[in-house]
């Protein structure tokens, strides 16, 4: 699992609506979790739907914030501020790295 091909396999999109408390919390939580467990293997794109509302339908977004794992397939969605690390890892289907 540590070959070069595995690098940046996690294509993640975080949908938020403006700079709300929940949005900011979700982004902070996401970055922390990725750095901890997916260091060097992820890419995060933050989409603010208040600026680009037309993008909401494409990924079937209705709740915010929503984290979408676009790759690897299948698509997974985690809604909420990502405050529960364990559930985020389950949702992303990622093995926790033991520190």
């Amino acid at each position, binding site marked *: 699992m540590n070959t070069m091909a595995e690098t940046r396999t996690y294509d993640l999109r975080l949908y938020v*609506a403006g700079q709300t408390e*929940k949005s900011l919390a979700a982004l902070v939580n996401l970055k922390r979790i990725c750095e901890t467990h997916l260091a060097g293997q992820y890419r995060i794109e933050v989409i603010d739907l208040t600026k680009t*509302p037309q993008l909401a*339908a494409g990924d*079937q977004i209705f709740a915010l914030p929503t984290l979408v794992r676009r790759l690897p397939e299948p698509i997974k969605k985690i*809604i*909420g501020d*990502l*405050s529960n690390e364990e*559930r985020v890892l389950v949702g992303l289907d990622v093995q926790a790295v033991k520190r």
Partner: protein
Amino acid sequence: MKKNMHPAVTPALRKSPTGIIGLDEITGGGLPTGRPTLVCGSAGCGKTMLAMEFIVRGAVESGEPGVFMMFEENEAELTANVRSLGFDLDRLVKQKMIALDHVHIERSEIEETGEYDLEGLFIRLGYAIDAIGAKRVVLDTVEALFAGLPNHAILRAELRRLFRWLKNRGMTAIITGERGEGNAITRYGLEEYVADCVITLDHRVTEQISTRRLRVLKYRGSAHGTNEYPFLIGERGFSVLPITSLRLDHAAPAGRLSTGIARLDEMLDGQGVFGGSSVLVSGAPGTGKSSIGAKFADAACRRGERTLLFAYEESSAQILRNMRSIGIDLAPWVKKGLLQIHASRPALSGLEQHLVAMHDMVQAFRPAVVVVDPISNLTLERSEAEVMPTLMRLIDFLKQQQITSLFTSLTTGGTGTSAPEDSEVGVSSLMDTWLLLRNVEFNGERNRLIYVMKSRGMAHSNQVREFVLSDAGIDLVDVYLGADRVLTGTARVAQAAHERAAAELRREDHERKLRLLAAKRKAIEAQIAALNAEGEAEAAEVQFAIAQESLQETTTQQDSAAMAQLRGGSKAGNGRTKGKR
């Protein structure tokens, strides 16, 4: 007309017409403008269809763009489903009159962690609304969210916010919801949040026949019909019967229509029935109800009026053939497009469905005359309490449209002791004119009698007529009233022959008497002539005698004078005279 309908409406409460036949009448103009309306019912009861029509008709008829947000079907499925009703969603979407958005919630893809809200839904909805300048919104059905999201506390709070948000944006909205268990209006209690207007739909099956019903449960700030109204999803979409049940204010035209049977018109005050009135023709099997119906239709077509004939016993081909046998040829009218015959089995659907279908066809064809043959088949297996209001609605509707209607009805009572008219008491009160046909069995044959049981607003005949069907058509004949019963059929013919013979005899007798009189008169005249002749002869005799005598006298005088002269002109002529003697 619409203004009188909802006097209880405050001027502030505006309504947005749904364009759905019947629903706007029940609600007094439509759904509350700028507010959400909850439409709930069990699966397959027509919620989506109602909501869709609200959006499509809003766009097409009211010029109000609408957003249809669906949680169950996707765009392609919905477009295909409504295409059969003649709604071209693709075109409306291209014209930016309608925006469709399918919110797909896949429970297995979703993990929940921490705080969230449904802002994404608001953004999507807001985006769609802004894109087309929507005035109407449908959420069908928002309850899918409950299945997709485990945290119902958040969901409820967000739904409350959503409905308030819709109100603030001035959206006239329909939110659909599943009917709940027991008495609950909706499974998740949506009625708590959407309290302005609640409409329930219902789909029931009784006696293996399904009936859809609609009810306006609540309409804040407005009067509304509170009954259950049957509705149908037909070829022209959603229709709710009845249109006019809230009122009894149809116009009463004074014009009269011929029934097509001259003698029957005569019985009806000499002019036939009132235009826009309803006529019931009831009778036992084979009394000629259908024939009267067909003649009525024929007469209307002859006047150039459109006629709609609903047949629930015979196919249209069979009707054309059978009616030709009694001299009524309907085929040319069908070809001309003046007459439409709709034949179907009464068991095809419930009474309400039939009536809604009839309603739709009447709306489409706009006839002046409607004939239903027979109405009793529609009411089979149904209690009168159920049938009456529905029929009343149909009749009211026809009257409202000033359509003259004729219903035939099969009576169940026999020709025996129970009066056949008893079985019609309920329906007949809805009718303006009631003709009763009855079989009389006498003298080894059955004959038909026709009575005018009632005819509102005219001095109709109280006489019984015999109703005769022949290849020359329909005719009514005076019956002979015998000592204890009326005479019909051959008895009537025999009686007529008898009377004819008697009249002939009498006529001959009179002639003979006249001849005798003439002869006698001639004899007397001859006698008078003879007497006259005799008198004349006598008179001539008398004159002759007189003439003779006067001649003698003259001669004597002359002789005397001559003698005197001969004797010398002396006056003493006595001697000579004496001597001559």
